[in-house]
């Protein structure tokens, strides 16, 4: 396959970037999208050019490191996969592919296609944990949990924190990510003690990072590589308003 790539090149967050066109030649349809970029980078390096910088790690769709906004879709046009799981047979010979970084105020560009997603880490640190007391190891089956609840919680827990929801949202809202993290713990018994403090702290941190708000368009749900559902956002809203309007739990003034 021979392809034309329009790639966003940007030296760092301070400088402005622009699109540069590259030819990707002799690409095997069985390559993954990232392997195709490896081939292009190899040829750029041979020519003495700066290779295209992009994020990647496990290359098997579980680490949440790869990104790329490909032809108007985060993680490319196929549903339920990450960029590293996207194969070149999805595209046709001679096609022009536009590759952009995630665009959000809260995700500043590090270089080219790589963005800084540490805003997600700070939201997670604000309350996305459960406290476990020291002592004997509790029996794994000691706490009965209905299967439907466990399934829901595990579905939410599949979020890999890649940021595709932010990239897909017209408001660059992080609510699908934040709500998945809140729901995963809020549904299970172990997450109850911190439930109403957690939702307040995490939403406060999300607002501080400068993400937009939710219009319930459902674009995040459609683009999520782990198919996290929009119902998570409604659950988060429910917990948040319940915490703010009807509970007496307060958020720590000094933060974490």
């Amino acid at each position, binding site marked *: 396959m021979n392809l034309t790539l329009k790639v*966003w090149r940007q030296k760092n967050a301070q400088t402005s970037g622009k699109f540069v066109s590259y030819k990707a030649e002799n690409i095997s349809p069985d390559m993954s999208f990232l392997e195709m970029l490896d081939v292009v980078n190899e040829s750029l390096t041979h020519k003495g050019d700066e290779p295209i910088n992009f994020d990647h790690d496990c290359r098997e769709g579980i680490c949440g490191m790869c990104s790329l906004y490909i032809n108007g879709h985060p993680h490319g046009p196929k549903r339920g996969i990450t960029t590293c799981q996207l194969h070149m047979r999805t595209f046709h010979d001679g096609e022009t592919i*536009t590759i952009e970084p995630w665009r959000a105020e*809260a995700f500043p560009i590090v270089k080219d296609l790589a963005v800084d997603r540490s805003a997600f880490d700070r939201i997670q640190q604000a309350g996305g944990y459960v406290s476990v007391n020291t002592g004997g190891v509790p029996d794994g089956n000691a706490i009965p949990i209905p299967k439907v609840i466990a399934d829901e919680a595990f579905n939410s827990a599949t979020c890999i924190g890649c940021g595709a929801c932010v990239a897909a949202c017209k408001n660059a809202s992080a609510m699908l990510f934040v709500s998945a993290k809140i729901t995963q713990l809020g549904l299970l018994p172990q997450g109850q003690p911190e439930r109403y403090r957690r939702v307040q702290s995490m939403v406060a941190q999300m607002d501080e990072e*400068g993400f*937009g708000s939710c219009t*319930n368009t459902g674009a995040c749900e459609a683009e999520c590589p782990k198919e996290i559902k929009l119902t998570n956002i409604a*659950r988060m*809203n429910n917990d948040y308003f319940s915490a*703010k309007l009807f509970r007496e739990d307060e958020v720590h003034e000094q933060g974490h």
Partner: protein
Amino acid sequence: MSEFKQTLNSSLGKKLIMALTGLFLCTFLIVHVGGNLLLFNNDNGFSFNVYANFLTHFPPIEVIAYLLYLSILVHALYGLILTVKNRKARPVRYAVAAKSDASWSSKNMGLLGSIMFLFIVIHMGDFWFRYHNDKTMGFKEYRTDLATGETKVSDYTPANAEFSHSVSTENNVEVVRVKDLHARVAYSFSNLIYVIFYVIAMGAVAFHLLHGFQSAFRTLGWVHRKYTPVVYFIGTWLFAVIIPLAFAAMPVYYYYLSTQGAH
């Protein structure tokens, strides 16, 4: 900052205000369309004029009316604030437009809302403002023979400029004198441009509520396997189809009557 202020200023709090004012405006639409169906009564505007008089002279309704105007302003203002904030969250836009699965109306709520706001300003200027302030607006006198139920209509010129309405009975004939808003409606809806604008505005209402009604429930966190389909059904059929169609039928019907020379 007090706790309530902090809650309402958060991203979720602002959406809560949008959802609550939006749903309140939805309930108003039901009342408004129900009352205005009286326009289809072929009685020279008797029932419609009496209804208009009731709305403007019954104190509890006046209180709710001002709550309603406030809701419209707050809903529009917060829509604007949220749009500005959401735009700021993505300062650099994508070169390739997003192709994600999302309904057209959900992505254009601001545009649809702006059309509706323009419509409300013109609509209230034409009917509400005139009804309250236009001294030249005429009156009608309806004489109903209580024995036969027959109603005769004639123009009425009040002797006193402060006159608003009267109901009296003389010799088994009920005499009702009210401001003739119905004539203004018939006059406005004989203008084709005006009718087209009304129909477009009702299209905007339909698409705005197709997304807005169910979205408000999601914002409030009221999503449930059993009830969410019901919310979708009501949002689609009642708020996005039946109500806008009923509203749009009014200017179209009156325009049709005007071309028939009936008014």
